[in-house]
């Protein structure tokens, strides 16, 4: 075995005990007869192996766990306001996955708003306005409000007679 090849093994598999028994024996045999490779092995151990052997385990400060816990809690807490909380309470009553129920709830809500927006809040037809006015007038007359009258009509009855001709 040549020194270059031995040193290639020494700096990797040999110090890491990854060589098979046969290869290990060959390297060890070479080392007994080669002071340069033995010196190389000493340098590898001293500079690149031994300094790490006494490295202990470090422990993080307790604040690290506190931060982790806070982040998890923040992620788990509902990030939305009262409306979504109400939605969640409502949808949680159904045995359907919450996202599906949420989507259904919001769709229904939008549809409802759209339908209501299109629905007439007061009847704007002119005939409806006229009839409504006349009904108010006649009911006022029936209740005895004669101030509503002018001209020849003196009472509710005379107005009825006038209408029926």
């Amino acid at each position, binding site marked *: 075995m040549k020194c270059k090849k031995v040193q*290639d093994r020494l*700096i*990797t*598999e040999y110090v*890491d005990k*990854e060589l098979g028994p046969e290869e290990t024996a060959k390297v060890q045999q070479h080392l007994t007869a080669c002071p340069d490779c033995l010196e190389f092995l000493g*340098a*590898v151990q*001293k*500079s*690149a*192996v*031994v*300094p*790490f*052997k*006494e*490295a202990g*385990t*470090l*422990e*993080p*400060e307790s*604040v*690290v*766990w506190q*931060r*982790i*816990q806070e*982040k*998890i809690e923040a992620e788990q807490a509902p990030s939305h306001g009262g409306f979504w909380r109400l939605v969640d309470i409502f949808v949680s009553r159904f045995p359907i996955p919450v996202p599906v129920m949420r989507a259904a709830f919001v769709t229904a809500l939008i549809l409802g708003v759209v339908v209501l927006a299109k629905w007439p809040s007061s009847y704007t037809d002119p005939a409806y306005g006229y009839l409504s006015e006349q009904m108010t007038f006649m009911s006022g007359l029936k209740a005895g409000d004669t101030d509503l009258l002018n001209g020849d009509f003196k009472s509710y009855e005379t107005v009825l007679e006038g209408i029926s001709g």
Partner: protein
Amino acid sequence: MQEIEREMIARAGQGDMGAFREIYQRAAGYVYTLAYRVVNTKHDAEEVTQDVFLRLHKSLGSFKFEASFKTWLYRIAVNTALNHAKKRSRVTTREVEELFEDSATVTQPDAAQGIEAGETKDQLKILLDQLNPDQRACIVLREIEGLDYQGIAASLGININTVRSRLKRARETLMVLGKKEVTGHEM
């Protein structure tokens, strides 16, 4: 790292914070040490530890128990630390140069004394600073965590030949530093 029972992992995966905290207590030292050795500052190591456990919390529910939990955690920890270290290393050339000048100034006398006196803590930081993040991760997993080549390859998602060549280059760099120190000491 202490063993973590399957049942505890399952409970944590179902949202049991008590079980998750127990996992943290058993594994935090390992994750933090690994992170510290790869990113090389306390602040960054804390950030990495935090990120690792948040990722763990999110993905515990989908852990299939097909792989070893330890290897899975090694993988998350080392990759999070590596990404962090690489992100950090994307600083301006000037900053890198300054960093090297600083570490070189501190290294020369202290390194030799440190080895002689067995003062490994600061010495480790100086040595690891000489390596790039990929080499650092390999050295840390090998020398500090005691993983074999197969374990390092699995943790980093690389093949064994890459593990070998990274370890070789890392050690060559450390030996050059060692020689400089010896020369400096002799002068």
